[in-house]
């Protein structure tokens, strides 16, 4: 169990920010929706850790924020992808495809008996 947690945590570290970019890339999103979306998929254990990440993505120019009035009246902050963020996401998607295929093939070959 400890091993599972460690492996999952380490794997999440490298991909979390791109999953955030991918969610935002579908359309402008509110912080809570991003957090819930990631947690539902098991990509985020503590939702609070999303906010340091969002702050960094904004500082680095990958996402930008805008303010909208909410149904409750209080202005909400929405996140959208910048062009740089889109490029970064596209590049990662390509890398991930190659990487995940390579890992899957390697795992299949070691468990399937064909080296």
């Amino acid at each position, binding site marked *: 169990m400890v091993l599972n947690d460690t492996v999952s945590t380490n794997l999440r570290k490298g991909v979390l920010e791109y999953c955030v970019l991918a969610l935002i890339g579908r359309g402008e999103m509110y*912080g*809570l929706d991003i957090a819930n979306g990631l947690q539902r998929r098991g990509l985020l*254990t*503590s939702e609070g*850790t999303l906010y*340091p990440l969002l*702050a*960094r993505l904004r500082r680095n120019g990958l996402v930008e924020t805008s303010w909208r009035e909410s149904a409750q009246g*209080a202005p909400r*902050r929405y996140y959208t992808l910048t062009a740089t963020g889109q490029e970064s996401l596209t590049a990662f998607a390509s890398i991930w495809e190659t990487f995940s295929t390579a890992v899957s093939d390697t795992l299949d070959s070691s468990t399937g008996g064909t080296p």
Partner: protein
Amino acid sequence: MKHATDSPEVGNYLAALEARLAHLPADQSEEILFGVREHIAEAMARGSQSTAEVIASLGSPDDVLTGYLADTPPPVLQQPIAPPTAPQNYQSSTLWVVATVILLPFGVFLAGIGYLFGLAGLWMGTRWKLWEKIMGTLLFPGGMLGAFHATFMPFWVAPVSVRGDTAEATISNPVLPGMGLIAGVAMMCLPIIVAVYLLVVGLRRGGKQP
């Protein structure tokens, strides 16, 4: 529902988080706190979770701080990795080189010991190769005085001609008979030529270890 964010539970959580983030740059901690505060307010407004559940799903303030630290490598790690600097080898200074090449030929005229200092400078210097140090020592021991002595007054050869022709004997070279005055002067120039050579190569190697 809005007033739910004013509950002591939420207030304590935000205060604890603010304390954990206190050492961060102010704009960063404020942005994180704002996001978390907004998250709580919106989750409360939706009404599907209790305050305790919302706070539990956020993780502890320590979790948020850990997330920040994991997400933000220490500044030193963000710097481009500097090329490893080679240990600075001791290198003789330019002044050392100049003083040495002056003392070698002319130091003998400074109470005699100037030459010895020149010799020490040559062998302790780091800008010359071994063969250059040997050349500097052998051409000529005693510098200009040594060259002069070897040219005109070698103590191992009688300066006086066996025929008694003393005038010719002092002018011609006893070591290399028939060498003549010009060759003798050229021989005397050797310490100067060697010194100039040592100066040139010494200065040229100023930037690197020989």
